[in-house]
């Protein structure tokens, strides 16, 4: 088992690349809007934005097939949109309204869609990791030939249950891809202060789980690594680890002033490595799209996001009877 960094890039059509641009832009604009609604008091509690990390979910969803499952932590809006969940339903859940995916009873951190095979939205750091392996366990048991993308962050990667899960996933050859989204900060703690070795992708070695590091600001690199991981899992070889190196532009949650890093660090990342800008310039320099084409996409995305905000404001709060429903099946 050799852990290695991948440089492979797939052949890709202009149409696909344009789609990734649109998908990533939708997440970014959606999150900006969510931040705005939070500022207006329409979204309460905790709200963790995904801005900066868009290429991770868009790249990996491009490697998934219908029926594959995914789940993640509380920083989950991007994963839901990438999985094809309706922006209206997600935004209405953020505002705590009846048309939200959880009827307003889950909120930003606890959202699910059986239809889109999105299994949360988990508020306890690391708890989704064994659950993801459990979904893979069920798929193996039922002989579904499906894989589960189990996302967690560099912070969660230090939780004990992650390694309990690696062990069992390896023993039982579970078709699960552990996607470590390394955005370099576990809330306010930089990776070098929390983590004894710099690489997470090697952490499966003790269990015989192959892993690789991926540039998470490059959607095509993410997709290529995702395809490799999917092929590994689907062929019955057991789990696979992808450490996707990414960056979150905003604070940990809305109420995080992010004083643990410099503004220059963030600005440098945004200016030099931004995944959306990278694809944008690929499209333009390769003449796969014109400025007008991209403007039209920007406009379309903006309309979708604005509509979701209106929908989320107009949707009523859950009826008081909802207090007592969905406690027992």
């Amino acid at each position: 088992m050799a852990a290695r960094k991948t440089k492979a890039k797939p052949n890709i059509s202009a149409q696909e690349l344009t789609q990734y641009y649109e998908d990533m832009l939708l997440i970014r604009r959606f999150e900006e809007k969510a931040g705005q609604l939070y500022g207006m008091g329409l979204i309460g509690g905790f709200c963790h934005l995904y801005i900066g990390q868009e290429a991770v979910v868009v790249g990996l969803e491009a490697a998934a097939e219908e029926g594959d499952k995914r789940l993640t932590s509380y920083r989950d809006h991007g994963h839901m949109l990438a999985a094809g969940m309706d922006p209206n339903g997600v935004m209405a859940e953020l505002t705590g309204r009846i048309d939200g995916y959880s009827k307003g009873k889950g909120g930003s951190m606890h959202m699910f869609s059986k239809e889109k095979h999105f299994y949360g939205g988990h508020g306890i750091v690391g708890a989704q990791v064994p659950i993801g392996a459990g979904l893979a366990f069920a798929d193996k048991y039922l002989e579904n030939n499906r894989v589960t993308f189990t996302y967690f962050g560099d912070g969660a990667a230090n939780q004990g249950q992650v390694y309990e899960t690696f062990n069992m996933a390896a023993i039982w050859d579970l078709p699960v891809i552990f996607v470590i989204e390394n955005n370099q900060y576990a809330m306010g703690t930089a990776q070098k202060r929390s983590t004894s070795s710099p690489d997470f992708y090697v952490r499966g070695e003790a269990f015989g789980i192959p892993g690789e590091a991926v540039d998470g600001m490059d959607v095509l690199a993410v997709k290529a690594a995702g395809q490799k991981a999917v092929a590994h899992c689907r062929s019955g070889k057991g789990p696979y680890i992808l450490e996707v190196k990414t960056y979150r532009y905003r604070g940990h949650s809305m109420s995080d002033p992010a004083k643990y890093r410099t503004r220059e660090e963030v600005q440098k990342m945004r200016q030099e490595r931004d995944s959306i800008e990278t694809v944008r310039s690929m499209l333009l320099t390769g003449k796969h799209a014109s400025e007008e084409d991209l403007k039209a996409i920007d406009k379309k995305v903006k309309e979708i996001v604005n509509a979701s905000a209106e929908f989320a404001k107009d949707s009523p709060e859950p009826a008081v009877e909802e207090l007592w429903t969905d406690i027992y099946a």
Partner: protein
Amino acid sequence: MATEILMPALSPTMEEGTLAKWMVSEGDTVASGDIIAEIETDKATMEFEAVDEGVIGKILVAEGTENVKVNSAIAVLLEEGESADSAAATSSEPAPQEASEPAAETPAPAAEAAVPAAPISPAYDSTPDWPEGTELKQQTVREALRDAMAEEMRGDDTVFLMGEEVAEYQGAYKISQGLLDEFGAKRVIDTPITEHGFAGIAVGASFGGLRPIVEFMTFNFAMQAIDQIINSAAKTLYMSGGQMGAPMVFRGPNGAAARVGAQHSQDYAAWYAHIPGLKVVMPFSASDAKGLLKSAIRDDNPVIFLENEILYGRSFDVPVLDDFTVPFGKARIWREGSDVTLVSFGIGMHYALEAADKLAEEGISAEVIDLRSLRPIDYETVLASVQKTNRCVTVEEGFPVGAIGNHLSAVIMERAFDYLDAPVINCTGKDVPMPYAANLEKLALVTTDEVIAAVKKVTYR
């Protein structure tokens, strides 16, 4: 059209703040994500980003201004080609009112509308667990539990058993004896010693369409897994708006065994019974062990199934029926009586029944109720009995603070206060970690003598 940039709330509790610094000037072009200002609250300074592209037409609140109300307009953003003048007009009046609207909306339902009451429990059900004349056989609790799992596994391929030593070792307490042979390694799965991890995997498997039975070697070790049990298994149905839940069973021995000390001798009944979204059962007899476990495996919710090591080897009558189940939320009256109601569950029933026998010799007639399930609880049977006997003593092995008996006392006080001729007494384990020494261990547990003394107190004998 010109839009107003509003003073943002940076936390759910923020009402106003200081506009510390403008990072842009009038006439600057901004794009989504650009930092435009720094906002200071009592806790922190935060950067504030533009959410739209445009030109900063007018700055309405100068930097350094304190006590700027959340949602008041602080600047005007123009679209390309618009002038600041035309925007100024739109910006002046309607903004604050519109902006304060959501704040006014939010506190509504909880404060104004009365919280609707929880549904009322069904009326008292006194039907027997099996029809009269049913053939009975003597069976141990251990055998009854195994039979329940085997029968359900035969009937439903998605049911599987996982836990430490459940397969090749045949169960640490031999509850799963023979299951590996019958169902194979796919469905009877030995796990590593990793409770948190395998409980989480089982929760995920239940989300994925299976019906796991998780055996904890004892419930003491389930504390390693309790986050998965409560935060993941019990709450997901609610948090998903009813889309997905965890149809699964967590089972294993609970409470004191014998001479195993503090870390291996705790009754978790009250802990789990506290949690909405869980069902909790704690059988005493073999027939209840079988009938309740079969119900638990079929239930679409996470069920905590609390067994007892000391009871595993005890034999009881079990009906010989093809498919015998016991419903949740239905207490069983073991003994009818008229002077006092003894309410217990699990191994507590041992003390309650023994006390009732001895009390009968002294002419005190005790009615003995086995709750069997602690969530839901059959309040109706308890209340009906208390209305008849006017006295109640609860018996359990757990710690006294926040005990099931405490809860029952409160319910009886609320709903049958006028029927009580004496305060309800809770007989519980002592408020100490379980000692190892044989004499001290005996003192730490609830005893039959304590139950008898409590009954004499409430009957003023």
